[in-house]
């Protein structure tokens, strides 16, 4: 697919912004509510999932340190 992009003469750096102001970007031709709701949910889910292992790790560290202290 990368190769075919080169054949088509596609240059991503030549692409222009599709909206001429911040407010038209937010409105998205009437679809702004749908688009930003979808991206908002995605952001929330990814952040939650990304932080989950860190939370698990902290809880485990606390538990293991406590049991190590208990043995001493």
């Amino acid at each position, binding site marked *: *697919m990368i190769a075919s992009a080169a054949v088509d003469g*596609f240059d991503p750096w030549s692409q222009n912004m*599709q909206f001429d102001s911040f407010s038209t970007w937010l409105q998205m031709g009437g*679809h702004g509510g749908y688009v930003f709701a*979808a991206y908002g949910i995605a952001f929330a889910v*990814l952040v939650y*999932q*990304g932080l*989950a292992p860190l939370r*698990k790790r902290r809880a485990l560290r606390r538990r293991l340190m406590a049991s190590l202290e208990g043995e001493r």
Partner: protein
Amino acid sequence: MGWLATWYHRWASPPWFYQMSGRWTRGLMGLALPLLCVGTLWGLAFAPADYQQGNSFRIIYIHVPAAMVAQSGYILMASAGLVGLVWRLKVADVVLRNCAPIGAAMTFLALATGSIWGKPTWGAWWVWDARITSMLVLLMLYLGVMGLGSAFRNEQAAGRASAILALVGVVNIPIIKYSVEWWYSLHQPATFRLTEKPAMPVEMWAPLLVMVLGFYAFFGAVLLARSRVDLLDRERRSRWVRSLVAEHAI
């Protein structure tokens, strides 16, 4: 085949898995974050709007990657289940059980963004169509694996039950894939195929490719990060974990 056996035995060893998965987590997250940022900006502002759907089409940049990762994640989970059942590997069991929460999150994301996209496009938040229903079944399978994992006291019994459910559920994967071809559906067919050029112009699919790669890297990073914490917990009585704890190295 010698290298494969060596590779397999190394990754099956919990201390090796713990050490290597730390590097892989950092590497994959280092790829995922820039890919997701670039893909989001590209998809939201630079990709052209669809001539029929307008800007609601931009939801594709989340919907398709989430749905692809949800299905690939399931296949990975079931494969780990098979390895765990056949060779009784602790690492495989840990991977199986940590695939489920992130797989469920990706499936939820595919369903939620699809629903939001459906409203302006089809005029309905939800239709009981084959593609959507089989994705809902995928969500139930992931939740079932999560539930079974915590329903047993005994870790091995929990692992076996989860693995069997994961394997039985594999039958749903081809149903999801071919649902739009077998049955009449509102849902559009696949965007990417291995053998054909995409039906959409490159300006539209290039950011999608970036997002798909970003989602895969993110899934891999979170799966490994979760799995290694879980592995420490299960191996907490072993010498290598105890010495890590004593050195404050976890």
